[in-house]
């Protein structure tokens, strides 16, 4: 219903944004391509709350009693597992989709906060390696910039089978973002659209993946932890197969996970939310008696220390942030609102990362725009943000009486909605009912 004219009723089936999309499609003849992640309303960690300590549990004293946050990742087979001060890591984002300054900021921020950052499609840049104490090297289907020397320079290797924003889909870095340096790193002509493949070129299934992992270990002297990243769909089976193939760490990325560019229909309609994905991954690990032996990293829509705490309470070992990290650097800043408006968007709504004209200078290869991000300041902001997430996580863990954040457990939470109760596998608040459990 319109605020100005109460007799005008907006259709629930055809609200204004749906009408606008039909009109846009009719005008252009092409689907909408954008960045960011799913924007639709789906069950999230917000639908869970913690049961703080009371009569039957006792809490730990804030600022006084220790609640540790250190995490070890990849100690199943690798000689050199990853040691982090906080379970909040930075997700893979490519040089190409992001500016060199943005990649440097991520490295600086992660290093200050005692955590890891991750390369993306297009390979590893020297700036990124230089500024990241702990750097995870993504092994992607396109193999753009894939170099065994970089594999050896990395601290861990993440084999990417999919991502939450587009499980089953590849990517496209549009020509306007292909600077001479990006083109050279990817071994393709400048200015052309670069298609990132949707599946790996040299294997076809989980049995092959096991051999691929063996090859990567042989090339890197069995030193590096091998992560396997999947977009959240058939999570139970995917995690089971990744573990069977020999992964040290499994990364599960829910549908809220961001992307540099893909079709809107893909972002909004493929994959499942992070909330059920965590539970399904943990169930798979527990069934194999591999929970806490193969570590689980969860990503997709992580925004706050509460989200981190809830993911850990459901059984994750760590989380990854991508979109939130970019926002911490300055993405969506009101400072650039006029410029966002000039390109048809607004601060808080900007999602056309593929266009390369990001006013905040983050998702661009335009040298003038990229200069707007000071990597030292950006790194400081990111470190501040990660520190806040970690402090919030500790606050919640102490309230539940936990001396390590990994001691959080599903029993510490209840759900506010039936959907969240069913997806997360925790009781609906005020009941002992978990929909779908015990035939109920």
């Amino acid at each position, binding site marked *: 219903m319109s605020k100005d004219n109460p007799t005008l009723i907006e259709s629930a089936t055809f609200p204004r944004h749906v009408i606008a999309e039909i009109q846009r499609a009719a005008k252009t003849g092409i689907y909408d391509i954008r960045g960011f992640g799913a924007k639709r309303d789906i069950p999230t960690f917000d639908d869970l709350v913690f049961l703080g300590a009371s009569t039957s549990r006792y809490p730990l004293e804030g600022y006084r009693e220790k609640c540790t946050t250190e995490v070890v990742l990849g100690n199943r087979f690798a000689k050199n597992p990853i040691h982090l001060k906080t379970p909040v890591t930075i997700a893979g984002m490519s040089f190409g989709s992001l500016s060199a300054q943005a990649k440097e900021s991520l490295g600086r921020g992660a290093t200050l906060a005692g955590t890891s950052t991750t390369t993306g499609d297009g390979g590893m840049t020297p700036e990124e390696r230089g500024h990241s104490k702990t750097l995870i090297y993504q092994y992607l289907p396109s193999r753009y910039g894939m170099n065994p020397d970089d594999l050896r320079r990395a601290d861990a290797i993440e084999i990417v089978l999919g991502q939450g924003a587009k499980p089953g889909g590849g990517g496209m870095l549009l*020509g306007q973002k292909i600077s001479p340096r990006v083109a050279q790193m990817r071994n393709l002509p400048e200015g052309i659209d670069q298609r990132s493949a949707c599946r790996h070129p040299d294997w076809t299934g989980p049995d092959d993946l096991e051999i691929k992992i063996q090859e990567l270990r042989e090339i890197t002297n069995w030193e590096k932890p091998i992560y396997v990243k999947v977009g959240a769909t058939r999570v139970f089976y995917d995690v089971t197969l990744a573990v069977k193939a020999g992964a040290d760490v499994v990364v599960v990325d829910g549908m809220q996970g961001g992307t540099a560019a893909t079709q809107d229909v893909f972002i909004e309609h493929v994959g499942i939310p992070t909330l059920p994905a965590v539970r399904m991954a943990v169930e798979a690990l527990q069934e194999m008696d591999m929970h806490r032996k193969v570590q689980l990293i969860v990503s997709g829509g992580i925004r706050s220390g509460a989200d981190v705490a809830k993911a850990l309470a459901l059984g994750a070992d760590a989380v990854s942030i991508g979109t939130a990290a970019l926002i911490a650097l300055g993405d969506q800043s009101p400072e650039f609102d006029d410029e966002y408006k000039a390109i048809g968007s607004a601060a808080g709504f900007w999602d056309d990362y593929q266009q390369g004209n990001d006013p905040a200078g983050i998702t661009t290869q335009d040298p003038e725009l990229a200069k707007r991000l000071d990597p030292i300041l950006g790194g400081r902001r990111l470190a501040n943000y990660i520190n806040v997430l970690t402090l919030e996580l500790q606050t919640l863990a102490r309230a539940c009486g936990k001396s390590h954040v990994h001691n959080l457990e599903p029993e510490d939470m209840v759900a506010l909605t039936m959907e969240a109760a069913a997806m997360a596998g925790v009781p609906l608040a005020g009941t002992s009912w978990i929909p779908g459990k015990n035939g109920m």
Partner: protein
Amino acid sequence: MATIDLNKSTIRELNEKLQGGSTGDKFIVNNTVGKHALSVGLTKEVDVEINGHVGYYCAGMNQEASIKINGNAGPGLAENMMSGEVRVTGNASQYAAATAHGGLLVIEGDASSRCGISMKGVNIVVGGNIGHMSAFMAQSGSLVVCGDAGDALGDSIYETKIYVRGKVKSLGTDCVEKDMKKEHKEELAKLLDKAQMNYAVDEFKRYGSARKLYNFDIDQVDEY
């Protein structure tokens, strides 16, 4: 000259020994029985001769080394090779030299499907035939086929040059026949010479990208 018997040594021991070799060292590997990930990640100018069939990813990510396989090779032979030379006297399975950035791969027999998929600068010479979807999304480097090519050769190809002596069953999207100019004949002659394949350059045709798909155009959507 060091000989490694895979009946007595593990794959880890083999690769450690080969990776630790010094320039000019020579190694012989016996009793491979189709084992995977043999002779991978080498970085020095060593000579490795492998007697027997090998499994997946033999010579993967090779840098500088010369590796000869007296037998057949499984999938992913010389995948992501950066430099050096790999030669197989028999046939190679799927995705030979996938994503490889440099060096020379010689397959004296036939290569299966997706040979040279996403190749990024490697040169490949196949003495026999190659399977379907070879040079799919191939970016740069050259693929020489002395026999016939299967379906959808060079589909979605970028800047790789393909030379075929025999028949091409079909060309993939955006792959077209191109003129054999002087520089192409010279390049082909050099590659055939290095691969020790005795064919006349004039027997080959060249194929490459029509470059119509380099920037997304909605009017080309029917191509897929």
